């Protein structure tokens, strides 16, 4: 309860209430953000272990540490856990929940109870999905393509229903963010003064609200297909397996932008603060996020260039996909221009931001290889695609999560992480990442298909390099985790604004008080006024 004591000098959201129960029933967006952090970190650990198992199996030709049946399952859970439980909730539900209300000067999100409910939806969904492990595990790949996924298998039913429930988590978070951004901005915080992180989350939220319901009905139909054999996706009753792909990608392509748009937002914050310079092209960056969100609904067919869809459809989807490249290029150029004549501080968060630009540029240009329909026919479903989306989603999203954590850590906990060790974690992750995934572009070009348990002997040396790189990434994340835990326990105390940031979160105490600000801020200028 907001009593007089809550506004005591040392009172903040962490010590405002005490005990496990106060965390499990909290309606404070900051605490919910941290609940998401813990959950997502645990799922990331699980997904990461699956990833290392995959790479270890692929170290040598033939069976290395597991059977083909086990491999199919490990690959499925790696994909499903990382996509649905790590990357999609990662930035919006953790960093977004924590900082969106503070950055617009609000006391909380619009619907705090829904916010808590959405966290429980994620837990429940994850629980249902992982129950499938007791039924032998799903082996369909995270895309659940029919008719392979129609086998009256309880494992697939669990996965589908789990994804359905976890989808509500995403919908409720998105709905909350849209209304919060519309209705709860502080006085003077007009839409062209909101930080770019908020713009990115807002664009993401629109996709979450509009696309996730379609995934919901798709996985519900998949579950019904496994329970009743309803026949929508089954040729035996005149159904169409390709229809499933249309439904699935109608959500899952926009979902790719649910994963990457918030990362763009984080990078805009990092670059301005650590170059101590106003962002170049605020409007262009803000609207390019919206443009990407809008176009994302009309490009799903580029996953299906060789599925037998008509030539006309293929060409239209290729054209629309090219259009996504333009706003993406705009962002990259604007970030680079922001560095010009700045005062650049190479602390760990900035290293992560620069690493993001490096990896995302590679991920972005290889996206054009895949959007070009003639080359995609060759690259489709090969390791080239695997390398491309890891460069975008891991190189993009995970680099910016790590950068964002180290950037906002002093705000969240009032302590600083050891910058030197944070940089060590960056070096391992960045180098390991390139060693892992760059060879996969070559493997894909040479024709090695994805989801392969075994491969031709001539692919072995590149696979070995890739596997070694994956261990380096693992070391990097362990170093990062230790740095974070050390920072939590022993970190140097930080003031309210250790980096010299200009957005509203840096004007309040570290850690912030229960209602974020002691007095509601009044905004009179844009978010990055370094004059």
């Amino acid at each position, binding site marked *: 309860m907001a009593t007089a004591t809550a506004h005591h000098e040392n009172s903040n959201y962490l010590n405002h209430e005490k005990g496990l129960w106060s965390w499990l029933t909290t309606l404070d967006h900051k605490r919910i953000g941290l609940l998401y952090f813990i959950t997502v970190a645990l799922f990331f650990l699980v997904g990461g272990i699956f990833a290392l198992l995959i790479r270890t199996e692929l170290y040598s030709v033939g069976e290395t540490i597991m059977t083909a049946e086990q491999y199919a399952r490990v690959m499925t859970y790696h994909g499903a856990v990382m996509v649905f439980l790590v990357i999609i909730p990662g930035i919006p539900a953790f960093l977004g929940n924590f900082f969106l209300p503070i950055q617009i000067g609000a006391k*909380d999100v619009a619907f705090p109870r829904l916010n808590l409910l959405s966290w429980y939806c994620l837990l429940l969904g994850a629980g249902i999905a992982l129950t499938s492990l007791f039924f032998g595990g799903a082996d369909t790949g995270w895309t659940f393509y029919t008719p392979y996924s129609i086998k009256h298998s309880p494992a697939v039913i669990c996965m589908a229903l789990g994804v359905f429930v976890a989808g509500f988590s995403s919908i409720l978070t998105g*709905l909350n963010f849209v*209304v919060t951004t519309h*209705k709860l901005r502080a006085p003077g915080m007009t839409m062209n003064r909101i930080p770019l992180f908020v713009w990115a989350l807002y664009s993401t939220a629109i996709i979450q609200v509009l696309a996730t319901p*379609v995934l919901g*009905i798709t996985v519900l139909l998949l579950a019904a297909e496994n329970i*009743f*054999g309803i*026949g929508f996706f089954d040729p035996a009753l005149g*159904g169409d397996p390709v229809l499933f792909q249309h439904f699935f990608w109608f959500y899952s392509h926009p979902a790719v932008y649910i994963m990457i748009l918030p990362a763009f937002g984080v990078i805009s914050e990092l670059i301005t603060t650590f170059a101590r310079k106003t962002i170049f092209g605020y409007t262009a960056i803000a609207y390019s996020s919206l443009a990407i969100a809008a176009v994302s609904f009309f490009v799903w067919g580029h996953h299906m260039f060789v599925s037998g869809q008509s030539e006309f459809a293929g060409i239209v989807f290729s054209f629309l996909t090219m259009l996504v490249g333009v706003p993406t290029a705009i962002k990259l150029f604007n970030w680079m221009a922001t560095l010009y004549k700045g005062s650049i501080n190479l602390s760990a968060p900035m290293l992560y931001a620069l690493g993001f630009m490096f990896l995302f540029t590679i991920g972005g240009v290889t996206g054009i290889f895949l959007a070009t329909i003639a080359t995609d026919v060759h690259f489709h479903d090969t390791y080239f695609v695997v390398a491309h989306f890891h460069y975008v989603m891991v190189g993009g999203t995970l680099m910016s999560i790590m950068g964002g954590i180290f950037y906002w850590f002093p705000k969240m906990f009032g302590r600083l992480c050891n910058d030197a060790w944070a940089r060590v974690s960056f070096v391992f992750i960045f180098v390991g990442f390139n060693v892992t995934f760059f060879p996969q572009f070559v493997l894909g070009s040479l024709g090695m298909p994805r989801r392969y348990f075994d491969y031709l002997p001539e692919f072995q040396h590149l696979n070995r390099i890739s596997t070694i790189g994956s261990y380096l990434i693992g070391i990097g994340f362990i170093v990062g985790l230790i740095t974070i835990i050390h920072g939590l326990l022993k970190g140097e105390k930080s003031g309210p604004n250790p980096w010299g940031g200009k957005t509203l979160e840096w004007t309040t105490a570290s850690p912030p008080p229960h209602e974020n600000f002691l007095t509601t801020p009044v905004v009179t200028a844009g978010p990055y006024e370094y004059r």
Partner: protein
Amino acid sequence: MSTVKSSSTGHHHAHHYESADHEYQSSKQGVWLFLCTEILMFGGLFVGYAIFHHLFPETFKVGSKFTDVRYGATNTVVLLASSLSMALGIYYNQIRDKNKAVMALLFTLLCGVIFMVIKYLEYSHKIHLGLMPGDWYRGNAEELAQYVGGLEIPKNLPLYFSFYFMMTGLHGIHVLVGMGLITWVTIRTARGEFGPEYYTPVEGVGLFWHLVDLVWIYLFPLLYLVS
């Protein structure tokens, strides 16, 4: 949730809003966004229906012969009436006429019950004939042919019943959820928690109920009147 201000009706708006109206406007926007997600979810089924109806018009024509238009029409009327009484429930809450509001909401609830009872009768009739979705279909072609006046029974008739049960089933779940929500706002109305300053939950539930009604308005012709 911590509450810092209270209005004359006794309602406390949440601490992060400036006023009761601010809270009302925000909640309403949230409900509308949620309704968009509902429409998109049902939209997936409608798209599927359009595709398969185009591919197999005969199957859908024969399938619809097993539905009873009288039941469907009754349910349409019942839901339309319930939408009207729901709107009245909101109106009487707005003018703080507690007794009339409770009566209107109880009538809405009764309509929901009638709808579900009729649905139950329809479902048991189809299950009796073995007209189940997909693999669970146990229909006997000769027996069924007599039922529809000697029309040939298409091989993929189960596909029609997959659509029938998925669409009406998902809709039926929404009716049940709506009935739960109406019960909740009826209790709160009876306790006198709503008035002209604060009636957000009734309005939100009302919007949801209208959507459920609207979906049925589309389902009725698509499943019952398709021939």
